């Protein structure tokens, strides 16, 4: 295969060997990082297991574990790209290669494929080394092999896209600095401008879900999506979303091919005598100038127009124009090595400003339309309804959200309820100038109002009646209803619980199983309400499916999961019951202060020491774990009389003496929580590394004792 017109294997082989050092370094680096990370993790895990036997395996989805590749790959690709195309930047190199008996196409393809081959080998070596290392350490891991493979495919495409763009950038320009800057602009600048535009829309609109529609969404562009996601810019998806989305692969491949074809065309047309120059042609330089001007000025112009202009906004425009002039001068200096050539940027500067003004007016129009959007039965053919993870943002790796967001609901009554709720939310938001909950409307959902052309995703605040009405209507939607009862098997999950009950791993798994049984047995109305509201005691359960990590939030409450709640409480009760010394000292202390009104156990508590010198503090609180009584979910203060407090202490003493457990829980019950916390001296932290001290690891430092006060207070 040595056709000098299309592809030459000899030339490919020659270039492949020329860049072998970078390729080998890349392989060594990726294998080294992969293996040492896995081996270190497994070693630490093994060491940790000596002190505890209550941990499950580490879940490896392949995605987040390989995020370091996102950082390494740009360096590798940039180096490979500059190496294979650098000859275009020097007269001698350019003349030499252009004198060889190859067509420009053969020269281009042979060199490009040599670099791609090395990059492929680097990714492959990372994949193989990881699979081998995980294989040797499989007893500590739950491995999603498909996820690891998917991640490596996405990383290959991530680098491949960049290599294609760099090839185009190098064909368009003639020195290393221009190569890098132009390549960066090709990859990022167009979507930087669109991302800025959407950021501006998001900041100026109310109740709109950050959602960039269609192909404008950066998730489809692997390079932009991953880098912008890491930088926290224009992020309505996370890293996992991007690298496991098949549509991203397709889009990225197509875009890469477009870059590649353009690069080939430009490479063919490029004159050898352009070696060493900046941009090779006036049109290219012009386009770059326009793009720079637009990117720098769009925010200030949109702000000025949207806010109807003030002195401050005018000064912002002046500032960005000055920055633009500086940047253009810098660019001209890099390109032509003559800063005086900045005058050549004047046409691009003017056109860029005009374009910016036009875009700004366009965005202002869009913002007004969004804010004035009113969903009705006439303009809405269906809706989607998803929960929110907290009352601010929806994270799409939430399993419930990911399943519900694509289910279209055509029930007109549902549409009507949500439309009216949205209007009321909008009025409230406009009146109070913020998007957060009001006292009446305090449950947020994401609603996608699907019109005949556009989809409009909005945050809608609901009250209890609306939730109940929705539940009543949605019960007949089998597909939608089914999602709410879908929970992953306990054997396939990693349960994370970091609520106030401090459960160990095994107990958390047990409570999860009980809670799931209870939730599955609920009527849809109750299940719907439970899932929509957040509770103070959410279990967050992680699992991986097809390379994607999902999270399921299991709401625990005394209304809907009383058994799970009592299981948790009794676990903590047993803990204190088993520490006889502590419990007896606690009882003595409480008996001592029950008549002492100077100690407010509901405020700062009291301290006591054991005979072994360990110090503890005591504090009382009255809690409700009802998701309906939202005001009482978090710790709060009651206005209790002195008599009430005395009775409570005596109740606590009695409960401690008998070691009573929690039995049946009702929705209106209140719980007296007795918090007993270890107090550590400052010396403790200097002298002990608690992580590796068995004695300290096994010791509980915070106890909670629960006493059901029913609805007494």
């Amino acid at each position, binding site marked *: 295969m040595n056709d*000098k*017109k299309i592809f030459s294997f*000899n*030339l490919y*082989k*020659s270039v492949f060997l*020329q860049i072998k050092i970078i390729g080998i370094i890349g392989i060594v680096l990726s294998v080294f990082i992969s293996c040492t990370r896995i081996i270190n993790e497994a070693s630490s895990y093994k060491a940790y297991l000596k002190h505890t036997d209550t941990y499950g395996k580490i879940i490896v989805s392949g995605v987040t574990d390989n995020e370091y590749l996102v950082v390494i790959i740009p360096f590798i690709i940039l180096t490979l790209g500059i190496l294979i195309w650098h*000859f275009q930047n*020097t*007269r*001698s*190199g*350019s*003349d*030499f290669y*252009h*004198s*060889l*008996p*190859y*067509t*420009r196409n*053969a020269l281009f393809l042979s060199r490009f494929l040599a670099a791609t081959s090395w990059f492929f080998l680097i990714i492959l070596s990372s994949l193989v080394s990881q699979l081998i290392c995980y294989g040797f350490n499989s007893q500590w891991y739950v491995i999603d092999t498909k996820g690891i493979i998917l991640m490596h495919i996405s990383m290959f495409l991530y680098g491949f896209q960049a290599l294609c763009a760099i090839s185009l950038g190098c064909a368009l320009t003639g020195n290393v600095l221009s190569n890098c800057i132009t390549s960066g602009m090709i990859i990022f600048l167009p979507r930087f401008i669109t991302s800025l535009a959407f950021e501006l829309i998001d900041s100026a609109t109310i109740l709109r879900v950050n959602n960039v529609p269609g192909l404008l969404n950066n998730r489809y562009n692997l390079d932009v999506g991953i880098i912008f996601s890491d930088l926290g810019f224009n992020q309505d998806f996370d890293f996992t979303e991007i690298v496991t989305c098949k549509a991203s692969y397709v889009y990225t491949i197509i875009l890469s091919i477009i870059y590649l074809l353009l690069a080939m065309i430009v490479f*063919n047309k490029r*004159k*050898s*005598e352009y070696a060493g120059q900046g941009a090779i042609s006036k049109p290219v330089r012009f386009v770059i100038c326009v793009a720079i001007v637009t990117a720098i000025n769009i925010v200030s112009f949109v702000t000025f127009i949207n806010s109807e202009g003030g002195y401050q906004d005018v000064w912002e425009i002046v500032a960005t124009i000055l920055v633009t002039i500086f940047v253009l001068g810098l660019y001209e200096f890099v390109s032509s090595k003559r800063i005086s050539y900045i005058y050549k940027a004047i046409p691009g500067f003017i056109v860029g400003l005009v374009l910016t003004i036009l875009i700004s007016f366009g965005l202002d129009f869009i913002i007004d339309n969004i804010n004035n959007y009113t969903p009705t039965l006439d303009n809405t053919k269906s809706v989607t309804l998803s929960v929110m993870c907290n009352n601010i943002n929806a994270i799409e790796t939430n399993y419930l959200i990911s399943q519900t967001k694509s289910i279209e609901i055509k029930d007109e009554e549902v549409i009507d309820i949500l439309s009216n709720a949205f209007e009321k939310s909008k009025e409230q938001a406009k009146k109070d100038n913020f998007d957060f909950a009001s006292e009446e409307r305090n449950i947020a959902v994401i609603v996608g109002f699907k019109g005949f052309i556009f989809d409009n995703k909005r945050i809608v605040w609901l009250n209890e009646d609306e939730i109940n009405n929705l539940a009543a209507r949605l019960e007949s939607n089998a597909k939608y209803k089914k999602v709410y009862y879908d929970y992953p098997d306990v054997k396939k999950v990693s349960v994370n619980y970091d609520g106030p009950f401090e459960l160990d791993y095994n107990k958390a798994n047990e409570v999860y199983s009980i809670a799931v049984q209870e939730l599955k047995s609920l009527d849809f109305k109750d299940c719907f309400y439970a899932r929509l509201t957040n509770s103070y005691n959410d279990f967050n359960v992680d699992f991986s499916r097809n390379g994607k990590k999902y999270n399921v939030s299991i709401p625990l409450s005394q209304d809907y999961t009383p058994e799970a709640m009592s299981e948790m409480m009794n676990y903590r009760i047993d803990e204190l019951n088993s520490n006889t010394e502590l419990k007896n000292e606690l009882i003595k202390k409480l008996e001592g202060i029950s008549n002492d009104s100077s100690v407010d156990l509901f405020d700062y508590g009291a301290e006591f020491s054991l005979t072994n010198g360990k110090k503890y503090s005591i504090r009382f609180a009255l809690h409700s774990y009802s998701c309906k009584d939202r005001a009482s979910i978090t710790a709060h203060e009651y206005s209790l009389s002195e008599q009430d407090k005395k009775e409570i202490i005596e109740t606590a003493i009695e409960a401690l003496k008998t070691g009573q457990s929690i039995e049946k829980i009702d929705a209106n019950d209140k719980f007296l929580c007795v918090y007993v916390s270890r107090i550590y001296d400052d010396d403790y932290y200097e002298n002990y590394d608690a992580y590796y001290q068995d004695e300290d690891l096994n010791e509980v430092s915070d106890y909670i004792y629960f006493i059901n006060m029913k609805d007494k207070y």
Partner: protein
Amino acid sequence: MIEIKNVCKKFDRFEALKNISSNIEEGSIYGMVGSNGAGKSTLLRVLAGIYKPDNGVVEFNSKVVYNNPDVKKDICFVGDELFFLPGANLKNMASFYKDIYDDFNIDKFKELVASFKLDISKNIGYFSKGMRRQAAIILALSTNAKYLLFDETFDGLDPVVRRHVKNLLYDKVLQGETTIIISSHSLRELEDLCDHLILIHQGGLVLDSDVLDLKTHKFKVQVAFKEDFDKTKFDGFEIINFVKQGSVANIIINGNKDEVYDRLSSLNPILLEILPLTLEEVFIYEMESLGYCCKLEELAM
């Protein structure tokens, strides 16, 4: 045959080549001479298929050279600024050339390396300027390409090596294998090497002639007569230049030497001497006759 047909080349607004036409016969050593910036390197690069002419065309045996590997496989170009693969030694470069040029002769390569006494395993980056030039020449000669294009190829070579290179080039051509095109700013450099010479000045082709023809058909005649005389006495001769100082005239004549001598003798001069011209003088007088007024210094030859 190489045909250069009305070739023009511009760099931005600067006209580097203005409507150049010439034919280069196979099996010859073709020299390009001109001052710095005259357009020699540009023309050479157009011939090598590196630059695409803005107008006109260059054909090798009726095939256009630009972007045509079928033609370029028979061409090896050695530029004024040399390029080698980063970190390569002569062995690596030979391997590279072997992959590109099907007729690359590794034995010939080794023979040449030995004759130039270069270290085949040493990184070329550590070679001196002259050694790098020698390395480039060795590689080019080893390709056995039909057409060798050299730009300022003697630059940096000592006289001994220069003589050696010239001998190698002669041998190549004498064996009937190669056509060589070589550019230089030094006419003296090419005088005893080339069969054919062109002079390029400010992008234009001002002279295109066979060297032997130039040397034998142009000569200086010193002549004096008893009586006074002027240029009209020599009507019928092809006079390129006539200068009379006192009673002696120095005349540059174009024609057959013996014939001219006989004819002048018949005029009964008291002094008649035929003196050879250097190639430089020939070029200068030719250019003057074409209306180019330039001195030796201007040509920097």
